[in-house]
């Protein structure tokens, strides 16, 4: 039935590579770090096969700089790292927000803070993805719990980066990055790929790289093309030239935040399992969502009205969707591997925060269905 060439049995990191290639990636710069390294390793081999470029830079800062530079020449770009490297990229990441450079940054999370627990799973960088760089800004961050979804959200990450002219973070985790499972690579065309919107302004006509069109989008012009403009990390006017005019400053800042926050519902991706009549709702994402679904499937089989809302977009946080889905639930359990980063968002989102519970694990081991079951029993008043 299937063309065997399209079925792969690979690691999640490689599924991400496949998604990136499918989306049109043609430039990658990176610096190795566990557990993201396989992304770089596979791209070192894959990219030149299609005429793309792979470069191993001297560090993560340089990698982030290089991808921004390459994006400006008109290429789809990506870098990949893990916690410590993600921290190092924060300054340049903020530059990409400010200068509105499309790029994708994969952070395959490991235990933190600091060097932490490099080869073990964690989901501790969710808030950092949102607030890691200085100053107000907005960001898109996505995640996935299986390789087919890793592939899909990677394509989506590139699409969103191009659509909104923004960096997009892929927040994978060690379990997803390293485990092997099936991936079926879709035919070209099966998943829509958003190409960069280029300006139609003719040579000699004044081009405004930072003046949003009516629909909010900002068409770009490649470096080397006919429009010579300026790109800067300072606040800037519609031509990209530095300005500290208070009006320009506040308008640009609001634009940067609004273009993403105002589109939270369009950007939101999620999956749901058995939510229709659910008394108990598990909200999870990434590898912990696998345990949540596993556990819910088992409980359903025993008649418990339980369902799962799996978030794939973490930022902007889809508060409306979470509120709606949780409206009828007796209890909402957020299943994550950190000290409670998404649960805080969920509490803010729902009408009844007192019914929101956290099932977490922070010891480097994947949270298990039985860990969640224990909490469920306690919520149900059944003790452990």
């Amino acid at each position, binding site marked *: 039935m299937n063309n*065997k060439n399209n*079925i792969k*049995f690979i690691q999640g990191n490689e599924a991400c590579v496949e998604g990136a290639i499918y989306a049109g990636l043609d430039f990658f710069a990176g610096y190795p770090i*566990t*557990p993201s390294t396989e992304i770089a390793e596979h791209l070192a081999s894959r990219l030149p096969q299609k005429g793309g470029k792979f470069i191993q830079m001297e560090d993560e800062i340089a990698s982030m700089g290089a991808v921004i530079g390459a994006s400006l020449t008109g290429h789809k770009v990506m870098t990949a790292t893990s916690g410590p490297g993600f921290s190092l990229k924060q300054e340049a990441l903020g530059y990409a927000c400010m200068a509105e450079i499309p790029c994708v940054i994969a952070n395959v999370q490991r235990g933190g803070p600091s060097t932490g627990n*490099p*080869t073990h799973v964690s989901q501790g960088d969710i808030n950092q993805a949102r607030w890691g760089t200085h100053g107000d800004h907005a960001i898109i961050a996505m995640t996935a719990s299986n390789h087919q979804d890793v592939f899909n959200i990677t394509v989506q990450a590139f699409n969103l980066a191009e659509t909104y002219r923004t960096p997009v973070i892929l927040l994978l985790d*060690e*379990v997803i990055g*390293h*485990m*092997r*499972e*099936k991936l079926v690579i879709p035919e070209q065309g099966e998943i829509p790929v958003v190409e960069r919107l280029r300006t139609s302004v003719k040579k000699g006509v004044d081009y405004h790289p930072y003046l949003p069109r009516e629909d909010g989008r900002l068409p770009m012009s490649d470096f080397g093309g006919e429009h010579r403009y300026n790109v800067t990390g300072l606040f800037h006017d519609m031509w990209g030239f530095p300005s500290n005019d208070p009006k320009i400053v506040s308008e640009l800042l609001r634009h940067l935040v609004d273009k993403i926050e105002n589109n939270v519902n369009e950007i939101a991706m999620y999956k749901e399992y058995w939510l229709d009549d659910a008394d108990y709702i598990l909200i999870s994402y990434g*590898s912990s969502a*696998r*345990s949540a*679904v*596993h556990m819910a*499937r088992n409980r359903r089989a025993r008649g418990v009205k339980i369902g799962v809302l799996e978030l794939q977009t973490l930022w902007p946080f889809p508060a409306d969707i979470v509120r709606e889905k949780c409206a009828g639930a007796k209890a909402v359990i957020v299943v994550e591997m950190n000290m409670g980063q998404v649960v805080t968002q969920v509490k803010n989102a729902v009408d009844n925060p007192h019914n929101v519970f956290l099932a977490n694990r922070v010891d480097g081991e*994947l949270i*298990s*269905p039985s860990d969640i079951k224990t909490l469920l029993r306690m919520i149900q008043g059944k003790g452990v």
Partner: protein
Amino acid sequence: MMERSRLVFSGSGGQGIITASIILAEAAVIYENKNAIQSQSYGAAARGGSTRSDVIIDDTEIFFPKVVQPNILISLTQESYNKFASIIRPGGLLLVDSKYVAVEKKVDAVHINLPMYDTVMKEIGKPIVFNICVLGALIGVSKLIKPDSILKVLETTIAEDFMDMNKKALDLGFEMGEKLRG
């Protein structure tokens, strides 16, 4: 319909245990249309001590990807046998190599103790295909998947020159395994 299989492969770094586990899972997925997941322990610890690779094979979707209690445990060193024997599911299957492991039969499991290494060395002379022989024995005894599926995977990953050797190792193992099943 096949039951869910949860396997733990264990041994030491150079024995090709991880490769073997991946080949098994890949064959199940690509050539037998099953679902499978493989994962392994990473990092510094894995370098020195014992290596572990988990595989789950099932017809339905697999969510939780880790093996807590394997129903099949393969141990190729004494150290890994000592470490993991206790986690096997009651009534499960335990496959060890008789050169490396002296079993103590303290767990409730079918103990299968085969001279896979010695056979490979005797018949082929190359330790490098030891892991494929183990795979052969495993599927010989368990009928998890068809040997042919394994061969197909090998064809896509191994240089042609080495195929014969690998096939031979697989067959040797398979026969040993099947015989036991017998």
